[in-house]
């Protein structure tokens, strides 16, 4: 029983002023998104500003190694006597950079490739076969292999996590494009002689934005998790650059002895990923419940 249109009785009857509430306000009305977003913003703010107020995360102080949280070291110290608090704050930067860059890069590459595959018929098969191939390689293994191969730097880790995410984005974008290209307004644009690039940018692209934003949040969360798992497997970001993942991975032998090393970055990671996912779920609920299904599939 969708809200139906009020028919006009005469040609110049008043135009119905049924302005839909703006997307942003719709999204913010969702409580989960609001609180999740707030939490996320707080995390981002701390990651941006925090590092200016802490000691260097690499500052070693071997005498006070493995100290529990105290006034001097709020989150305690690790095996080299480095300040966990400072490392967690700095690590937030790195983890968020990983999450956000992976999300952005994967989405952009996926968007372009997916649009081409979806709209240009002869490109579809070759692109999708390559994507199938990529998809079939287990993501973690691909990442481990790539990092082992090109050396662990922030950049390689980001690339390694990005690559396996791309085919999923491509699939999603392609499926959106395939439905949208059958939309009468796209056909109308073709009938009006609009050229391909303009059709892609004006008519197809905007439709992929909402599902892409949703997808990007999931990728962002997943990337941060993957980063930590790679760290755990010893194939993550070099330990000198603290990220939540490698702080935990370095601290894992101390799990039962000095649990704070793993606890604080763990909580920070969980909260961030949680907030990202909550925002993602909220966006999905408000932006497009149907797309979400395709996306995960």
């Amino acid at each position: 029983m969708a809200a139906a249109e009020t028919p006009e009785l005469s040609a110049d009857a008043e135009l119905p002023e049924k302005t839909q509430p703006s997307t942003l306000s719709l999204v913010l009305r969702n409580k989960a998104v609001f609180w999740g977003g707030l939490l996320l913003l707080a995390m981002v703010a701390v990651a941006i500003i925090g590092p200016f107020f802490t000691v260097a995360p690499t500052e070693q102080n071997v005498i006070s190694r493995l100290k529990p949280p105290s006034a001097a070291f709020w989150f305690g110290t690790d095996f080299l006597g480095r300040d966990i608090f400072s490392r967690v704050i700095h690590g937030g930067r790195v983890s968020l950079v990983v999450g956000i860059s992976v999300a952005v890069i994967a989405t952009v590459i996926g968007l372009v490739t997916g649009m081409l595959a979806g709209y240009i018929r002869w490109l579809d098969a070759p692109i999708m076969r390559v994507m199938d191939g990529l998809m079939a390689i287990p993501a973690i293994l691909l990442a481990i292999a790539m990092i082992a191969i090109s050396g662990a730097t922030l950049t390689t880790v980001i690339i390694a996590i990005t690559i396996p995410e791309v085919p999923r984005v491509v699939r999603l974008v392609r499926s959106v494009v395939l439905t949208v290209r059958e939309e009468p307004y796209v056909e109308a644009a073709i009938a009006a002689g609009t050229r391909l690039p303009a059709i892609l940018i004006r008519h197809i692209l905007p439709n992929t934005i909402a599902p892409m934003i949703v997808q990007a949040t999931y990728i962002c969360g997943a990337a941060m998790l993957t980063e930590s798992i790679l760290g755990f497997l010893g194939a993550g970001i070099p330990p000198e650059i603290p990220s939540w993942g490698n702080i935990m991975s370095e601290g894992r032998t101390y799990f039962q002895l000095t649990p704070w090393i793993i606890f604080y970055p763990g909580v920070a990671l969980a909260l961030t990923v949680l907030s990202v996912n909550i925002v993602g779920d909220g966006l999905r609920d408000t932006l497009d419940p149907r797309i979400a299904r395709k996306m995960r599939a």
Partner: protein
Amino acid sequence: MLTYVLKRILSTVPVMAIVAVLVFMLLRLAPGDPAAVIAGDYATAEDVERIRTQLGLNDPIPVQLWHWLVQLASGDLGTAIFSKKSVVELIGQRIEPTLLLSLCTIVFAVAVAVPLGTIAAWKSGSIIDRIVMLFSVGGFSVPVFVLAYCLIYVLAMWLKILPVQGYKSPFDHGLLTFLRHMVLPVLALSVIFIALIARMTRASVMEVLEEDYVRTARAKGQSEWKILIHHALRNAAVPIVTVIGVGIALLIGGVVVTESVFNIPGLGRLVLDAVLARDYPVIQGLILFFSFIYILINLIIDLSYTLFDPRIRY
């Protein structure tokens, strides 16, 4: 149907070929060198060089690729550089734990997640729904290894009700011992899976509950829970099954970690060790094997659609 299956299997050939070449090239661009690992700490550069030549690593890469592909075509995945065992044999040794672990995880996850998701969908917006969803989102937020450590700590070390680690084959040690050793890894591994499936179940059941035929069922005077079971779940099955397929890919990643933490001698660890040691034939063979499994499972999943939805015919 049979021709469809044959065609699907045939169409995996180009995908597998892409995977094969991709993986091969990736590894050969690696700076790591199995020869150096083999030679050990005292080896001189000449020793390493000699081993490289022996292993055929000094041949031009296209030649190596060609040798490998020829070998593959005859169904041989190669021989491990280190243990000198054939990759097929290595897989054979390791497949049981991984297979059973994955199977238990999927079964357990589905058994938990589908009812949870269904209830959440039915009571959508209620407190039950919120709790289920929070749990689902939370399941995506904690790295597997942290969860695994916590589980070991609480259930094995503190309460002492389960073994810490290890794998006991049900064929040698009986079902009970096997299951006791499986509980912790399955719990650790299934959380993310439960989260994924519960979410999908909720979404798809919710969507189905909006369908006209559910209204029809209500108009017949059918009770709510029968509507859920009879009408909603079967219709929601296809996306749920699909997401299980997607989950398999995730599972393979999770298996690597879980097997490490719980000391399960499965394929995940085999591949990790191989990567660290640059045992090229093993890495190549395994990634190919995993890809094949992934493709196979997706085929099975596609075929299983016909079980749930009579409209789908191949």
